[in-house]
């Protein structure tokens, strides 16, 4: 397991765990961030990341991306 910020661009990973504040976690879930779903890191912008999940592109700040563990 490693934080999303460390993922290799273009590689397909699975979400293992999502930490952080309750509110944000819930919001992420409604966007499709659930344990087990596939996630691809598309690009980095100084720690902030853009990922692809369930056919949509989501931008996430570094603080949040650090709390998403993938593997």
């Amino acid at each position, binding site marked *: 397991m490693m934080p999303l910020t460390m993922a290799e661009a*273009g590689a397909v990973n699975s979400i293992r765990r999502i930490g*952080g*504040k309750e*509110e*944000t976690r*819930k*919001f*992420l*879930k*409604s*966007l*499709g961030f*659930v*344990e087990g*779903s596939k996630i*691809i890191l*598309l*690009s*980095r*912008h*100084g*720690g*902030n990341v*853009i990922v*692809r*999940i*369930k*056919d*949509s*592109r*989501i*931008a*996430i*700040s570094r*603080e*949040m991306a650090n709390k998403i563990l993938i593997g």
Partner: protein
Amino acid sequence: MAVNIALAGNPNSGKTTLFNALTGSNQFVGNWPGVTVEKKEGKLKGTKEVMIVDLPGIYSLSPYTLEEVVARNYLLKDHPDAILNIVDGTNLERNLYLTTQLLELGIPVLVAINMADVMEKTGDQLNLVQLQKELNCPVVMISALKQTGIKEAAQQAVALANRSRIETAYGQFDERVEKTLERLAALLPQTIPAAQKRFYAIKLFERDRKILADLPEIPAAESIIASLESELEEDAESIITNERYLWISSMLERCYLRKKQSSLSVSDRIDLIVTNRWLALPIFIAVMALVYAVAMGNWSISIGTHGTEWTNDVLFGEIVPNAVDSLLNSLKVSSWLSGLIQDGIVAGVGAVLGFVPQMLVLFLLLCILEDIGYMARIAFIMDRIFRRFGLSGKSFIPMLVATGCGVPGIMASRTVEQDRDRKMTIMTTGFIPCGAKMPIIGLFAGALFENAWWVATSAYFIGVAAVILSGIILKKFRIFAGDPAPFVMELPAYHIPSLQNVLRGTWERGWSFIKRAGTVILVSSIVLWFLQGYGFVDGVFQSVEDNNHSLLALIGNTFAWVFYPIGWVGDMAWKATVATFTGLIAKEEVVNTFGVLYHYAGELSETGEEIWSLVQADFSGLTAYSFMIFNLLCAPCFAAMGAIRREMNNAKWTIGAIGYMCGFAYGISLIVYQLGGLLLKEVQFNFFTIVAIILLGGLLFLLFRPYREGKTLEIRIKTAKRD
């Protein structure tokens, strides 16, 4: 019989396009009760009784964002006759997540799969019949952009609304979950209609306090919930979320066939360049420079500026005044009334309407950027920079718009979801020098600083610095403590902007600007005209020739002492005070007022070149600078204050925001005047020097005081218990 149909769907699913296509020009825009989320309703084209209610774009019906709460309350309490659920066909899995929740409400649902045209192109195949069976509700294919299938979809939704029997889908959750939900449903009060039992059972399971608070009594279900939680080793909400996604993916496996796609879509490829770590900022600056040049610049491509010049010089300089003049002459109205209409109303309202062309061009360009999908990228790119001083990347767009006019800027703060971040954005957006503040800078830069380049530059710098300082300082107060909400935002696929969406968006924003000119500014123009033209001469109230005797001068003299500490002394004191007051009506009034007060008879140019020598005699460099700072930062014009009130939706916050701006402006002016004066040997050491030093110290203290994390309510309660 009137029929209400709620239009629900994810953000970026084409909902707005569909709404526009269904209702055409029969739209009413308002606010949802008690909140500043925009509410749009419209009559379905070609009908009289079918009302379409556009719900805010939402990803789910959980209670975590304002939009979700608004949508949920409407669906549960106002109980529309049917829901038209628009689903993005290129992003089925995520979009159907909301659908599974809508299906539980006991309201007939029609699912309209949008972007049928795109799906056809990519070769994806969706088995509609199978999907209908799985969801247990009618499903249609549409293309909102190409307007195919939408009429039929609307008709079908109306037909559903008129049906008496409601079929609700029952999700195929895991057996253990279903059993638990059944047990919970049995505990619910009898008053709940059968069709909504499942919804309430799920909410009971999820411990959703907001929904349960509406029940007459909350059933004791904790042991049932806890036992399933421990069995599945997950919390209740996660269980439900997972079950929904499992149901959706198993459903799609049976009825959705995807063509293999290349790993990177066109949008992905564009994003690789546009959000690239090195290129993002230069591209962004180039785009903004272009927008600014076209809307507000002073070049041949600056369409907006040309429009504004024409409006000021020709429309409100010649055409309208002449027309009004001949009309008034032919009606033989008395001279005071024609004075009121010409000098008061036409001049006052005209001054504001002059900005309309620039505003419209700016809005048009911003709407295009938004419709293309670039706005979301801007917020993302700016987030890293804005986060450093406690604002979110989404705060950038309001500030960008505010360089044109603060009113739409403040209105644009709606895109900032988190309440705290939005309030901070509203409070700081007014510091950005808007178009109407430019003449103030022009007047003093010309009159006292020989148009030195650093005056105008420093004015912008002061505005931006005020935003940054406020961001950092406000964060040190408990109300604003805590990091800005983590940035999570969907980046929609890039697409060619739709003409209808862009024009409609431009018009909506432009119209609310014009409306304000017609109300607030109209009234205040009349009041100002009256105060300026009438007064007491030898104890008799009459119209005055010399405005030194006007009521306005009286007011100015009464309040001038307030500004003594920031260097407004001597002959200029009351003039500066009056100009500041009239600046509240519209900032461009400041220069006009100086023109009137210095008895300049002719037409004043924008920066008031004609009165430079007179201003120079009254002001020193330092007092001019102090006046400029105060007027750039203090309370914005009435129109912007109105916008603040509307967006804050709370009297205390409105007063707080305006009070903060005035206080901040006063403090900075005081520091600059007193300490600057001491250095330049213009001011003696006095009581206010000490005040200025204390203020500066306080400012620096707040600025550098270490930020203490986590002063939220919950944590305070916890520590209290520990004590």
